[in-house]
């Protein structure tokens, strides 16, 4: 009895895959754009501040001002130092975002430094519209300015704080973001493949045929879940191969755990997709559900902004965010080489969500049938 059910679910999954395979355009657009996005964004993604444009107003006529100006020829932090002749021009350049930061070297700059005990003051104006980037840039500029005239007699203490970075010593942004990008790609495919599975049948009217067929609701839900799981597994295999073989991010954890956790994760996303699909009466509604789930789930996963930065309430809410747990697992297995014992607890919420959503999808499905 159970065995027959399994066979029927598999047959239904086969039918789903065949109907997708016949539509060449849909198949291509399911896999190609996400994979292309993975590749393009892996080159694009960076939170570093480099290649910035700054504007400088040098009011000093002496040699010191000019020598400080030269100190800003630091690549790759600065791309261009725009020189202006008046405060008005400086303000205008900042206002129109021709520069991220402005530097003013005062009139008495050389004179103050000529005096062996004298100090000079340099003003830095940052564009607060891009608070994070300009704040970081301001730090760089003030370091350069401060280091420019360091008293030779300064005693450098040896009681230092030695810093090292593990896993990614040069802090290459791509290494840090690739697991997250791969995760987004497989999540998108799993969602896109599963969210229309039931609602499309309703829209085209084949739902009634499905209901009168000998399939039980459980078989239908499982069959559709299997189809979604298969498609998203293919995408995941592509995405993860690209980052492991193409971008040489080493797999440090055990392979079986890597595969098992990925499949478990995809199952949880597919079941969320099916739940959305079972709730919707039209395709428009399931698309809406997809838009409602995917962007917040990705943005609150710790992909670009750490989960720790969120307020406590929102952090507790991310317990149900499957993407967050998968990101911890992927980063742990791919970059840090976390121990199996530390990975396993992250799989608990994934399993719980998969079970809850599949059950809910089945309940919704059954209710719609009656």
């Amino acid at each position, binding site marked *: 009895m159970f065995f027959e059910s399994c066979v029927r679910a598999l047959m239904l999954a086969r039918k789903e895959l065949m109907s997708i395979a016949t539509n060449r355009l849909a198949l291509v657009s399911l896999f190609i754009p996400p994979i292309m996005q993975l590749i393009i964004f892996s080159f694009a993604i960076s939170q570093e501040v480099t290649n910035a444009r700054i504007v400088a107003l040098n009011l000093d006529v002496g040699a010191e001002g000019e020598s400080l100006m030269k100190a800003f020829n630091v690549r790759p932090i600065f791309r261009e130092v725009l020189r202006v002749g008046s405060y008005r021009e400086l303000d205008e350049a900042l206002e129109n975002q021709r520069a991220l930061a402005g530097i003013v070297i005062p009139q008495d700059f050389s004179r103050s430094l000529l005096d062996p005990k004298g100090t000079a003051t340099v*003003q830095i104006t940052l564009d607060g519209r891009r*608070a994070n980037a300009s704040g970081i840039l301001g730090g760089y500029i003030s370091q350069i300015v401060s280091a420019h005239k360091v008293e030779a007699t*300064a005693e450098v203490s040896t*009681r230092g704080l030695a810093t090292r970075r593990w896993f990614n010593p040069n802090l290459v942004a791509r290494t840090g973001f690739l697991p997250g990008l791969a995760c987004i790609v497989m999540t998108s495919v799993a969602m896109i493949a599963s969210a229309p599975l039931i609602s499309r049948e309703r829209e085209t009217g084949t739902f009634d045929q499905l209901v009168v067929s000998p399939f039980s609701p459980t078989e239908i839900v499982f069959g559709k879940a299997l189809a979604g799981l298969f498609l998203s597994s293919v995408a995941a295999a592509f995405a993860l191969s690209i980052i492991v073989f193409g971008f040489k991010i080493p797999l440090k954890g055990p392979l079986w755990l890597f595969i098992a956790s990925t499949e478990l994760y995809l199952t949880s996303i597919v079941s969320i997709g099916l739940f959305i699909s079972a709730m919707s009466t039209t395709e428009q*509604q399931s*698309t809406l559900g997809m838009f409602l789930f995917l962007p917040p789930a990705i943005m609150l996963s710790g992909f670009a902004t750490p989960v720790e*930065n969120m307020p406590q309430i929102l952090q507790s809410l991310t317990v149900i965010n499957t993407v967050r747990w998968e990101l911890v697992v992927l980063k742990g297995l791919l970059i*840090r080489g*976390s121990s199996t014992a530390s990975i396993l607890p992250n799989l608990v919420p994934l399993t719980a969500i998969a079970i809850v959503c599949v059950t809910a999808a089945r309940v919704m499905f059954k209710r719609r049938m009656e």
Partner: protein
Amino acid sequence: MRGFGNKLERLLAIIEKEWLQVFRDPSALLVAFALPLIMLFIFGYGLSLDADHVKVGVALEDRSPTARALWIAFDATPYLSPIFYADRGSAERALTDGEVRAILVASSDFSQQFESGIAPTVQLITDGSETNLSLIIEAYAQGVYARFLSNQGYERGISTSNLASRINVETQMRYNVSRLTRNSITPGSIVLILAMIGSLLTTLVVAREWERGTMEATLSTSVGKFEMIVGKLTPYFLLGLAAACICALVSRYVFGVPFRGSIFAYVLTSSIFLISATSQGLLISTVCRSQTLSSQIALLSSFLPNYIFSGVLFEIDAMPAPIRALTYAFPARYYTVCLQTIFMAGDVWPLLLRMASYIGLIALVFITAMIVKTPTRLE
């Protein structure tokens, strides 16, 4: 004159028909009113680059008063939450397992070495897989350590350059004196929300008509391309504009982001952006003719590209040149500049008009493509 009257009549009829359709399917209204609210709240509170309470493991193998003072110094800062480990090995394991973002190791001979002044005495190891956070932790930890040193009676800490430098630096952040990154990120969230809503609203419209067969019915009438496109865009454009207004109100009154520009500038730039977003959705829909396919493409083309290329969380200047060139094709990039300027700086017209005209240009490309792709008769 009669011809124009007829055109206008047909246009109004289509707008009325679409409008009725919007109100009959509550999901479109949900998209326009509930979605922006939910997303703005989530993004407004959830997206932050200001790290605080970062978990840092502190391995104190030495139990001397000096080592305890080090712990107290790290415990005192709100930015870092130290977690105690008795030895180096367990702290390193915690870092590998991702339980902490960095570890600070004071070895068993810490106080001895500290007194004798042999360098270096304390080690900080950060998790390099969190690239941005790594840098932030390093900066915080250096600051805390310098303060610890000065509390211990060592006047000159590690960053001697600052103290010894003869050039003072006065830094001021214009438009955002309190340096709140939320003020920059919230307008960026609006960009993302409107980009998604705009294309989501329209993407299913034409595809649905093709699937249901009502497109054939419309095509058999005397409706022209222009009336068809404008008629379909108008209701969704207006819904998007309503969403934009909700976003502005929430940002101003809930998140406390200043609104220094004029409402006129906000509505103008938002309108141009929404024309581009809704026509992008409609174009996808016109080309795909299938709801499943067009919703796929709408999701893929509106979320990630706008998220990464808008310049809110990721730095466009730091991207390699070919990709930087690619970002120019995305209206989100220009609209972000407009909104950040309108919210924080005010009406900087030269900048706003330049950005708005770029968005307008992209919208024009979408509309032209749509005119080409919209059939006037059945094939």
